[in-house]
């Protein structure tokens, strides 16, 4: 058995830009949003791998590609050795049981007309795993595990009768009742309040140990990522610009973008007057990404080579820390 549960190899997802019919007739060229543009990484069994970046970086599309909610334009995704990108739709269903998703908005993820217990147990029906009383038993069991108690009462409730935190617990329960191996969590706590967030994170980590899970944790929030991720990949405009063990990346960021992201996190300490080296401007349009290094127009250190050649994602030394920057050697302090 390979150490890697997921292997992503040079995956691309380009979305065509919608144009009017007349424009399509008049021009042959269709523009594409290069949401994910040549990304490779592994998710090791039993780890929490984080993908972080701002909106438009492609992190959510990457998560959707892995569970094949969108089809890739190019590249391969191996889940336990099986290529998700080319698998027949019928086979995909079996794989889907093994990989579950938790989305950001629990209210949008739950059918408002389905009782919470039914919603959690729906996957058991679809996959033909359990029905009737057995299904109910399994649902009650998982509801207790995620802290939806008293389970028998909450089973009969509709989503709108639950609090936001409880709804997200229901979504987590629904993902876990199928005993998946991989859970793709896309901003799972972004909608929750501060006091509820910490509890949800703790719950997710406890469940990971109990059920032997592997997580892909997608977030824009580097601060919460710190508490859960073993390794992290920083995405910018469809590319991974830096990847490595979380402690390593946070304590010694190699890419100027990673450094900027870390510097931008508000510090809850009125005395901390940080010296901020914020990059100029905002993330550019992914239809026509800048040539060379995609970050160069905002990078304070950019040199000529950065404008011409795209830097490959390379190992720094012989460690586990990778960076895509022409200059990291020179910038290192």
């Amino acid at each position, binding site marked *: 058995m390979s150490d890697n549960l997921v292997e992503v190899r040079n995956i691309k997802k380009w979305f065509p830009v919608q144009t009017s019919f007349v424009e399509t007739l008049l021009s042959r060229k269709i523009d594409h949003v290069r949401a994910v543009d040549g990304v490779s990484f592994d998710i090791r069994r039993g780890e929490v791998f984080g993908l972080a970046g*701002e*909106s438009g970086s492609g992190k959510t599309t990457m998560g959707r590609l892995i569970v094949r909610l969108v089809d890739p334009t190019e590249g391969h995704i191996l889940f336990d050795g099986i290529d998700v990108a080319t698998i027949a739709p019928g086979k995909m269903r079996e794989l889907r049981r093994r990989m579950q998703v938790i989305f950001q908005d629990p209210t949008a993820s739950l059918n408002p007309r389905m009782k919470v217990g039914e919603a959690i147990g729906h996957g058991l029906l679809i996959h033909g795993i359990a029905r009737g009383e057995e299904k109910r038993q399994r649902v009650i069991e998982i509801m207790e595990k995620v802290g939806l108690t008293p389970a028998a009462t909450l089973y009969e409730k509709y989503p709108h009768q639950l*609090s*936001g*935190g*409880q709804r997200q617990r229901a979504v987590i329960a629904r993902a876990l009742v199928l005993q998946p191996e991989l859970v793709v969590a896309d901003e799972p706590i972004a909608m929750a*309040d*501060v*006091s*509820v*967030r*910490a*509890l949800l*994170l*703790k719950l997710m980590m406890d469940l990971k140990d109990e059920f032997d899970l592997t997580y892909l944790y997608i977030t*824009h*929030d*580097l*601060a*919460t990522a*710190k*508490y859960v991720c073993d390794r992290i990949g920083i995405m910018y405009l469809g590319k991974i610009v830096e990847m490595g063990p979380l*402690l390593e990346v*946070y*304590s010694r960021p190699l890419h100027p973008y990673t450094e*900027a*992201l*870390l*510097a*931008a*996190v*508000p*510090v*809850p*300490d*009125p*005395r*901390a007057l940080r010296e*901020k080296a*914020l*990059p100029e*401007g*905002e*993330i550019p349009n992914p239809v026509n990404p800048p040539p060379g290094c995609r970050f160069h127009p905002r990078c304070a250190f950019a040199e000529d080579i950065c404008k011409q050649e795209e830097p490959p994602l390379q190992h720094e030394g012989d460690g586990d820390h990778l960076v895509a920057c022409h200059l990291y050697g020179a910038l290192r302090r």
Partner: protein
Amino acid sequence: MDSNGVLLEVKDLQVQYETRAGIVRAVDHVDLTIERGEVVGLVGESGCGKSTLGFSILRLIRPPGEIVGGEMLFDGEDLLKKSQSEMIRIRGKRIAMIFQDPMTCLNPLQRIDDHFVETIRVHEGHVSTEEAHEWAAKLVDSLGIISSRLSDYPHQLSGGMRQRVMIGLALVLNSDLIIADEPTTSLDVIVEAQILELMKHLREEFNLTMILITHNMGIVAELADRIAVMYAGKLMEVAGTVELYDRPLHPYTQGLLRSIPTIDLERQELATMPGSPPDLIEPPPGCRFYPRCPQAMEICSRMEPPVMGKANRHQVACWLYEDAF
């Protein structure tokens, strides 16, 4: 911070929403004083009433919401006694608001400079259109917008630029008070930090008085002079920013501060707070926080704690400090 006198005094404010399930007391007997030249952070989780309080000051509460009691003395005059037409003259001119989502607040069919011209001319009829253009051109420089972008439409600007425009619209008439409701929440981290830097700079330049409504304790730590913590429609604690972070008194504030995630690698444990905020239709008797409070006492479940301590000093609504003041 110099004490330049009181600008706004909210006294015993009560705002409620009538719903089919019952009456939600979103702001329940809240007092708050804002002095000239200070930035007060109004923090709390969603549903705590912080935005309702902010909107109440401008009397922007719409049915089924209603301000049912209290006083709001702005420069000595009660805003609740003003007529609608008087309020229209106050809104945007004397009290301006910065909203969370700039895209829904800007007119998609209007160029940026027309937004400025309209805002200026509605309140300052004597200013000609040309002069108004000049005002706008002068202001955008301090906002970090290139003046050629003034002829753009909102959709041509990035999210950060749009929020800069919103801030500019709030500043252009030199309002006495600015209410900023989650001004950076819809922005990405780096842009958020850029806007925060801008706001820090602007508050010095224009000597702003501001109420900063946010759920983010990191943002108020950077920008606010004083912080008011709300929970379930009630004011729980008010103190100077440094004082509040150094010596939070209310168990809710303490829990809130402990459960903020940071990128500090030394801190690996994230404290948790059990439960979730109460139902405001039938709030628990006594202190609203007692069902979640690690230090709850017998009295907490029976009697509501009053706000203790002197105004403009450290104030807290908690029975633990009954003898301390």
